């Protein structure tokens, strides 16, 4: 065996919190290692120390037989370690190609000036070399979709020709076609003798891709096991420290919802996003949407909620006979939206859990009074924290101190506390661990039972298949097929329409 990286007694502290506690970890050359653990178990912290984003507090790292202490990510790249981080890490106001080489632009200097053409050319060559989905290199990243930005991050990590590539929940942001591309890339890199560390909450995917899996719990490394003799249930058990039984998804095999139409969408068109989209959403129905990247599913969510205005067609709440043209129309008539990018588009990250719970319900909290009483906010937030089992020190803890799963509980819970008719959920389980995922599905099923009409937009086929009553497949902004639970409701049938 040829160890490329050895970690001994690694510790990382954030104030009183022990994020990594004396971790011993050895990585073999050419190995694909999975890291599993609940949100907040210390996986990302461990990898970010290897990648130079965090500086370790204690312990040693030996890379290729020499002590390794990266001061920053560029230092890590110089040592042939690349990382794609969980949350988006691109410079939005700079061109994609500049992002790929940011921090190392000096290599493109011609005198005092940068050779921009060479930057664009090398970025394109890099994308070609690894078969990455092409992005417009000269455009700034803020004009791109989340998936394209992830491609830029991936290219950045690959730009140093890494011997160790770290992928922290990359697949969660990708649609099926780009996931397949990533799987091909991983096997290509393995064949070339590269080492890869992967974090993904999709445990089936992890077992499929990896050679070995290390499980972390409460900042400690619990066990490392071979993927040849481990099951998903065993990993879950190691992750949470007890047995987890039962399925994530719905167990019924037939669609089950009322005939009452809650939302009617007729011939909606937004140039370059969605075209002539029509469907009905019923009371107590979970209507899934899936498609490849640029299929328009995420854009459609924004259109339905009034964030993006549509040119033609109509979006109507049938029971109230109200056309949705703006976010205000949507919120004031019992609609809610949970976006894919929760940190940037949904939550106030530097504000408290209490404020985040209160935000969508300020009118209700104020009532007829001239002010909002702090006690009513406190009461509501405490109920939200209790009902949705948010792990926090208090309702006044800031959002940016919560794990991904707990942030999503707040994001979802604050809407479900309200009296809603329709909720649009865009990738509601993105970046959350198995136990939170199971919890969110449980919450969705309860909401469905109570008559809530749910639109579930997802890049994960098992999720939409597992939860939806009906499923709409989109391609290039248009509806390509509609499937009903119980009738040819399989992944193969969906993929045939998607591609």
């Amino acid at each position, binding site marked *: 065996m040829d160890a490329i990286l050895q970690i001994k007694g690694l510790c990382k502290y954030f104030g009183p919190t022990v994020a990594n506690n004396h971790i011993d970890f050895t990585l073999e050359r050419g190995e694909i290692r999975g890291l599993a653990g609940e949100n907040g178990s210390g996986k990302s912290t461990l990898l970010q120390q290897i990648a130079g984003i965090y500086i370790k507090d204690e312990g040693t790292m030996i890379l290729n037989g020499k002590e390794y202490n990266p001061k920053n990510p560029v230092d890590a790249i110089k040592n042939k370690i690349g990382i794609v981080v969980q949350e988006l890490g691109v410079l939005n106001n700079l061109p994609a190609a500049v992002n790929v080489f940011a*921090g190392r632009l000096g290599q493109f200097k011609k005198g005092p000036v*940068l050779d921009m053409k060479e930057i664009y050319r090398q970025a394109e060559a890099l994308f070609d070399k690894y078969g990455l989905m092409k992005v417009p290199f000269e455009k700034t990243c803020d004009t791109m979709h989340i998936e394209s930005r992830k491609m830029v991050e991936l290219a950045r990590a690959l730009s140093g020709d890494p011997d160790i590539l770290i992928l922290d929940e990359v697949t969660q942001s990708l649609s099926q076609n780009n996931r397949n591309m990533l799987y091909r890339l991983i096997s290509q890199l393995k064949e070339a003798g590269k080492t890869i560390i992967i974090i993904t909450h999709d445990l089936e995917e992890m077992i499929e891709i990896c050679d070995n899996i290390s499980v972390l719990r409460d900042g400690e490394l619990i066990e490392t096991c071979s993927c040849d003799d481990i099951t998903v249930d065993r990993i879950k058990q190691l992750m949470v420290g007890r047995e987890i039984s039962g399925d994530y998804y719905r167990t019924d095999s037939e669609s089950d919802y009322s005939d009452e139409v809650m939302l009617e969408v007729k011939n909606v068109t937004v140039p*370059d996003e969605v075209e002539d989209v029509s469907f009905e959403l019923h009371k107590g129905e979970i209507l899934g949407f899936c498609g490849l990247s640029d299929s328009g599913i995420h854009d459609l969510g924004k259109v339905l909620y009034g964030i993006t205005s549509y040119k033609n067609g109509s979006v109507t709440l049938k029971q109230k006979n109200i056309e949705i043209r703006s976010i205000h129309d949507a919120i004031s008539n019992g609609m809610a939206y949970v976006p894919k990018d929760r940190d940037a588009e949904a939550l106030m990250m530097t504000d408290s859990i209490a404020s985040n719970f209160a935000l969508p319900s300020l009118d209700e909290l104020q009532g007829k009074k001239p002010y909002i009483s702090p006690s009513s906010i406190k009461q509501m937030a405490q109920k939200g924290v209790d009902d949705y089992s948010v792990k926090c020190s208090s309702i006044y803890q800031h959002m940016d101190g919560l794990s991904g799963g707990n942030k999503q509980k707040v994001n979802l819970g604050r809407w479900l506390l309200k009296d809603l008719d329709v909720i649009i959920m865009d990738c509601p389980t993105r970046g959350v661990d198995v136990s939170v995922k199971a919890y969110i599905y449980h919450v969705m099923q309860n909401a469905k039972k109570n008559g809530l009409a749910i639109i579930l937009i997802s890049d994960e086929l098992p999720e939409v298949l597992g939860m939806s009553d009906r499923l709409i497949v989109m391609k290039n902004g248009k509806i390509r097929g509609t499937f009903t639970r119980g009738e040819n409701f399989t992944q193969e049938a969906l993929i045939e329409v998607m591609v």
Partner: protein
Amino acid sequence: METNAIKKKNSIKVIIIIAVILAAALAFNAAFDGRFLSASNLIVLTSHAIIPTFVAWGMCFVFACDYTDMSIGAVIVLSANMAGEFGLMFGFPGVILGGVISGIVLMTINFLIFVYTKIPSWIAGIGMAMIYEAVGMFYSNAKVDAGMTIPQLDGDLRMLGRAPYIYIIFAIGLVLAYIIYNRTEIGLNIRSLGNGIKLSESMGINTAKTIIMVGIICGFFVGCSAFLNESYNARLSIKTGLTSLSMIFQPMAGYMLASVLSNKINIMIGVPICSLLVYTIFNVLTFLGVPSGTWQEAVLGIIVIVFGVLAQRNVKKVVK
């Protein structure tokens, strides 16, 4: 994805905007008996627009990294007086170096304070404006005590503020601003700071060094504006009571309008065009007999707000 149809539509919009501006200019010219587009008026217009253009270029770097510096007006006043002081001693080199070096030194002090004190830059900037105004006052009083006044450039030494020299300096400034902002490592690093210090650091960018470089680069352009101001106007009186703040509004309006158009035209090229447009509005107001000092300043305030609103359209976060 942007299709050809959208590109074509955008091009048509730009052509319409240019056509409207030209039509308005011709209409004003006709209304004012050909005085608006006369050679002498055009020279006055462009020369006047060049001075705030340099300040607006400096502001582009400050705003790009998410900082705000309210002391730029006070820096201009001090630097212009240093340009005058050294100009009287050493001639043209003194005018240029006196202004530029003072601008660089003062703006670098500001950015060192921003980096190391961690005070929000707009608060620290106001504090520095008060200090620089006070320094200006001490300097002015010292001159009076010595039986002199603040420096005043005489005929020949003012040449840099006249055509064709002011246009040559403008051309050099445009090339430098464009290249530094778009084609240098430091320019791109400065722009990366606009995404947050943490993210830039995680990309391996030396953020403290980059922020200080913002001070140096901005100071260079502010210093250029200062010596041009001194050359054009012969002297620049000392400001007190934070009145130096009003000196940044005109360049700010030019910067904001340029940032509105930055999707269509590079901001460094847009800045002089927009500064010219802003100054043209003042010129038209003068032709219309609107008094300066009251109504023209009110119009400037409205322009800043309108351009600020336009700059904010389709942007999720609030414009700095």
